[in-house]
């Protein structure tokens, strides 16, 4: 119960940060990415603030043996390899982010705010994730010897 309430609070805090920062305003996001036009650098400060807090907090949290509600910390991805999937995935994500002005977090917040574009975007994003899962499973099935 306590764990669920904290999850709810974390989601709410995350949304409040996204809303205050301007990340849920597609035009502002596109202004941030419009480096060759009338560049609005504001959203760089979102990342500075978020990384500033988290980079310090995670080092303090790492002194604990375990998180409060779980037996252990989830390991971070072991791979340090820069492969084609990472580059292609990030490149494809960036194209969509620039075209719509939404990345996943702000899209959920704006969908909660009943913004028609964000509702459509979240639906399409979910389909995109399912497409990836189906294709990925097929590739794995094809490369795994029976």
């Amino acid at each position, binding site marked *: 119960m306590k764990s669920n309430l904290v999850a709810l609070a974390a989601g709410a805090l995350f949304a*409040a940060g996204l809303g205050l920062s301007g990340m849920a305003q597609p035009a502002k996001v596109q202004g941030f990415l419009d480096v060759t036009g009338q560049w*609005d650098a504001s959203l760089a400060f979102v990342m500075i603030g978020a990384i500033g807090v988290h980079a310090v907090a995670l080092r303090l949290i790492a002194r604990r043996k375990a998180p409060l509600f779980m037996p252990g910390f989830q390991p971070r991805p072991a791979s340090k390899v820069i492969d084609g999937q990472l580059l292609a995935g990030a490149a494809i994500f960036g194209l969509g982010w*620039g075209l719509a002005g939404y990345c996943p977090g702000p899209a959920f*917040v704006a969908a909660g705010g009943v913004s028609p574009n964000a509702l459509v975007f979240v639906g399409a994003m979910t389909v995109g994730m399912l497409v990836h899962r189906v294709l990925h499973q097929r590739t794995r099935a094809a490369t795994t010897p029976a």
Partner: protein
Amino acid sequence: MYHFTPAPALLGGLLIGLAISLVLLTHGRAAGISGLWAGVLRPSSDRGFRIWFFAGLIGTGLLMRAFLPQAFGEGPTAPLGLTVAAGLLVGYGTRLGGGCTSGHGVCGNSRLELRSIVATVTFMLTGALAVFAWRALS
């Protein structure tokens, strides 16, 4: 510099950093939105946590519509086809690349993970390219 608002951006960023740190402290995991959502779509052991997290995220969006509508700052509605295409790209790309602005951009970069740094530079570059191309065409 156009509509430059560094103070609310920084404050919002601090809150996002706190939210991500709270998830790490209590649940011991990275709070990347695309990864969390992908785990809602399939059976996962921590689905309860994910659903409550999204309830907070989406519910706060609804509250903001009532009390802080300027948070959504909608201009003219983007064409439907463009929004659908962009959503498909974001959904597919974040799964292929293993993260988005939160998972790579905040969680991974805070740990100075090379993959996240490379991913962040890449999606910033192609994001700028998409805006440039769209503005040039329209």
